[in-house]
Each structure stands twice: as structure tokens, then as C-alpha cells.
């Protein structure tokens, strides 16, 4: 299970955010405890009796020395509050500046496009032939700054990997950017953090942080065209894929399927999840998804497909060979 927690930072930015957060947590926690202590003291302390009269009549006569003491206490409280808030202000300003200071020449650029309800991921390269496009799974090398260019095709989404950074919105018709760097290898889960419709809750992705060599190997594998079918069944499966409505939305590089409405399936079998982190990528889940995705993720754009059982099995063989 990939980690998804802002409390265990895996990069410098998440580290700064969490140290700011802990400071605020401890300070406000202490303030809360002090206020509660005063409240309890006020509740518990007995009222002073009124010159021998009945104890339940409060003493409301002005008392100059007490008044002065009280105003000192209140003034000290106000001054402390202002100082604390000012410290918070300065600290969060410094953190905000530090978060934005990652601009470096030697960086990787990843374009993320939000769709209802999945993530299109493409790695920018000056040479178009070296551009890799995938979905719902982002691989980045450890220790190298990454520039994310974020946009959307439909509504506002928000890109959030709690272990690495705060949130940045994906706005249709506008490119937002965010930088992040991961110092610790691992698999981190991110998800959409801006309500974007029916399946907002099922719009997740994973960020795989790995050493550069492993990343490079993954990148080269993703760059390759789809694997040619090797068995009869896989060949039949490709035929089913190319002669059914699949091709109207999906791309498998190396075949005639080149539509970009749905996720790129060139290396679908190499990904860990299906349907934007909704399902584990297994044969059974894939079959259920192809045949009746509306049962699994109601409202998603994938229509039901009533395939003949033999055709479905062949199609699954083919899709599972797309490593």
C-alpha cells in the first residue's frame, strides 16, 4: 500500500511544510491547554463571600487593585497573541518563499492533464519522439527537481501528493506550475483535492520515486511502441481491440489506435492500478472494467462493452501482454 501522509515527508518541500505545521500545532496546542486551564480554574474557584451576607450574592463592588491586575493580565494576553500570530506570519512567509525556490536548470518536466476522472501524464522532451505519455502513474528520479505543468480539459482538479508537497489546482485553459523534489525512494499516493464531479473520490495516482537508473529503464520501456502479440490469442485480442469501439478513445502506440480521449494503453500492463487508483491491475478487475465499468465507477466515460466471452478473453490476453 503506497504511503499517503503529510506527516511523513519524503522531500524538502513537504519537510518544510510539516515543520511549520508542527510548530503551529505545538504553539496552538499550548495556547489551547492554557486557555482550558484558566477556564477550569474559573469554574473551580469559589466566589468570595460578600461581607458575611448570603454566599450566593456576588460581590460587584469596584475594587481598584483587582481591576488593575486584571487589565495587566488581559494586556499581556493580547500582546502574547499578537507576538505569536506575528511569528506564525513570518514563519509561513519564509516557508512559502522556500517552497518556491526550487527552480533549477537540471530538472525534469512532467505535464499532467486532469480529466474526469483520471490523470494524463506526459514527459516533455525537446524531441517529440522522446515524449512519453502514460496515465495515473508518475515515475520520478530521486533527488532531482521536477517541474509539473498542470492543466485540465474539463473542470478544476487539484494535484496533491501529501508526502511531497501541498496542493496545486489544475485549471482548464490555464497552465499552473509546481516544483517538487523527492529525497526518499518509495511509492506515494496522490489524489485529486478539488471536488470535480461524481467520481472525484476515485481519482488517485501514484508517484514512484526511484534511483535514476531504474527511472531511465522505465522511461525507455515506456518510450517503446506496444509489444507485438506473440500468441494466437493475443493476436485475436488485438483484432478485437482494433475492430471495436476501444479505438475511438484509446491509444496503443504501434497500432492504428491513436485517440486521446481515454488513457494511453500502450503499456497498460506495466501500471499498478486501473481506473485512476480504483482497482488493482489484475486480470479479473480488467475484465470487469472492460465489460461493465459503470458498476465499478458510475458516471465514468467508459461505456459498457458486451463482448463475446471468447473475444473478451482474447482481449484480456492482449491487454495483459502490453507490458
Amino acid at each position, binding site marked *: 500500500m503506497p504511503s499517503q501522509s503529510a506527516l511523513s515527508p519524503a522531500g524538502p518541500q513537504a519537510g518544510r511544510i510539516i515543520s511549520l505545521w508542527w510548530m503551529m500545532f505545538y504553539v496552538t496546542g499550548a495556547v489551547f491547554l492554557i486557555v482550558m486551564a484558566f477556564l477550569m480554574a474559573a469554574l473551580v474557584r469559589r466566589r468570595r463571600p460578600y461581607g458575611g451576607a448570603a454566599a450566593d450574592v456576588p460581590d460587584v463592588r469596584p475594587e481598584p487593585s483587582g481591576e488593575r491586575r486584571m487589565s495587566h493580565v488581559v494586556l499581556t494576553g493580547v500582546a502574547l497573541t499578537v507576538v505569536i500570530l506575528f511569528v506564525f506570519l513570518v514563519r509561513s512567509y519564509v516557508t512559502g518563499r522556500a517552497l518556491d525556490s526550487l527552480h533549477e536548470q537540471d530538472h525534469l518536466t512532467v505535464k499532467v492533464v486532469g480529466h474526469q476522472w483520471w490523470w494524463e501524464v506526459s514527459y516533455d522532451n525537446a524531441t517529440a519522439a522522446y515524449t512519453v505519455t502514460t496515465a495515473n502513474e508518475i515515475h520520478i528520479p530521486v533527488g532531482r527537481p521536477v517541474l509539473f505543468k498542470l492543466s485540465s480539459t474539463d473542470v478544476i482538479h487539484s494535484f496533491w501528493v501529501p508526502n511531497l508537497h501541498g496542493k496545486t489546482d489544475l485549471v482548464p485553459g490555464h497552465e499552473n506550475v509546481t516544483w517538487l523534489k523527492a529525497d526518499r525512494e518509495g511509492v506515494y499516493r496522490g489524489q485529486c483535492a478539488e471536488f470535480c464531479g*461524481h467520481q472525484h473520490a476515485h481519482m488517485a495516482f501514484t508517484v514512484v520515486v526511484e534511483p535514476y537508473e531504474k527511472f531511465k529503464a522505465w522511461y525507455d520501456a515506456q518510450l517503446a511502441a506496444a509489444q507485438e502479440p506473440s500468441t494466437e490469442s493475443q493476436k485475436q485480442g488485438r483484432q478485437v481491440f482494433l*475492430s*471495436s*469501439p476501444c479505438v*475511438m478513445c484509446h491509444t496503443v502506440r504501434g497500432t492504428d489506435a491513436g485517440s486521446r*480521449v481515454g488513457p494511453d494503453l500502450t503499456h497498460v500492463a506495466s501500471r499498478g492500478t486501473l481506473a485512476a487508483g480504483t482497482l488493482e491491475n489484475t486480470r479479473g478487475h480488467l475484465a470487469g472494467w472492460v465489460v461493465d465499468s*459503470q*458498476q465499478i465507477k*458510475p458516471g465514468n466515460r467508459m461505456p459498457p462493452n*458486451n463482448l463475446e466471452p471468447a473475444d473478451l478473453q482474447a482481449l484480456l490476453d492482449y491487454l495483459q501482454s502490453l507490458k
Partner: protein
Amino acid sequence: MRLARRLAIVFWAAAAALTSASCMREERGFRVSPPPSGRVQTVRLTDFQPGPAQPPEVTQNAYEENAYAVSEGKRLYEQMNCVGCHFHGGGGIGPALMDAHWIYGSDPSQIFSTIVQGRPNGMPSFRNKLNDDEVWKIAAYVRSLSGQVAKDVAPSRSDDMSGPPPESATEKKPPVKSGGIPKSAEMPK
């Protein structure tokens, strides 16, 4: 005073009834069963027939009672480039869809088969390009263009610029059978 109170009660009851009706409109049937596509194998596209007249085609398309499905049909109508020829219903290269004239029939099953099979003079076949579910949604939307579906189901706005009034404001036009090919598709003289 009493009358005013009664009127208020009637007003609030009517408001509540209207509100609950509008809630129903937002109910999304994601797995509504459209008619079986086998139905389309037997559909008649013409009224010409030997012998005594037979009743016209009548098919119930469950998607015509589902605002979400009709709006999905509208989305597909744009994405599949139906607008390329039929425009937003007004027609141009292909026949108009917002008028009362139907060359191959106005029944949902007839529209379904027109989309799946294609028709002479330019209508391409979408067989194996769209699956049945999507075609039934498009068929529902196509009928909403001429006001054949209920007004609270028909789309009430477009996501982009569009000339005609919204489908939900379209008056129902009783279908008229018209033969031949659209004027625009005739051979140039």
C-alpha cells in the same frame, strides 16, 4: 387572513412538489438497460409494404426518460462529429434533425439502425465504432432535437456557443414521413 394562510399552504406544497420533481431530474441512471440491439435487425425503415398496413414501429428507449443519458448523447453527438454534417440540428451537409421530417423513420430503433448501418448519400456507418449503449444515448438526444422527449429530460443549455434555442425549449413536432434524399445531398445539376 384565513384565505391568505390557505394560499400560503398551497404555495409551499406546490413549491415542494416542484422541488422534488427537479431532484428526480438529477437522478443519474448509469446502468439503465436500453432496448436489446437485436431489435434493430427487424426494424422497418419504410411504410411501403404489400398487403394490409401494419402498425408503425414503436420502441421504448429508456434513455429518453433520463436527463443524464440525453446529455451524454449530446456530448457524443459533438464528439462523434455528427455536428460536422447535421450541425446543431439545423442540417446543412446532412438533413436537419430539428424539423419534423424523417427520411428513415423517427422511432428510436429506426434512428439506432440509421446510426449503426449508415445511409446512402453520406451518412457513415458507426458499427464497431460506438457500442450499443452509446448509440441509444445519441438516438435519445437526436429525438430531443425535435422535441420528441419530455422537456424536463431534454438538455437545457449547451457548453459552447450554439445558434438554436435549447432542446428543452423545442416544441414537439409530430413526425412527418418524407422520402428521398436531402436537397443538399442531391447530385449537382
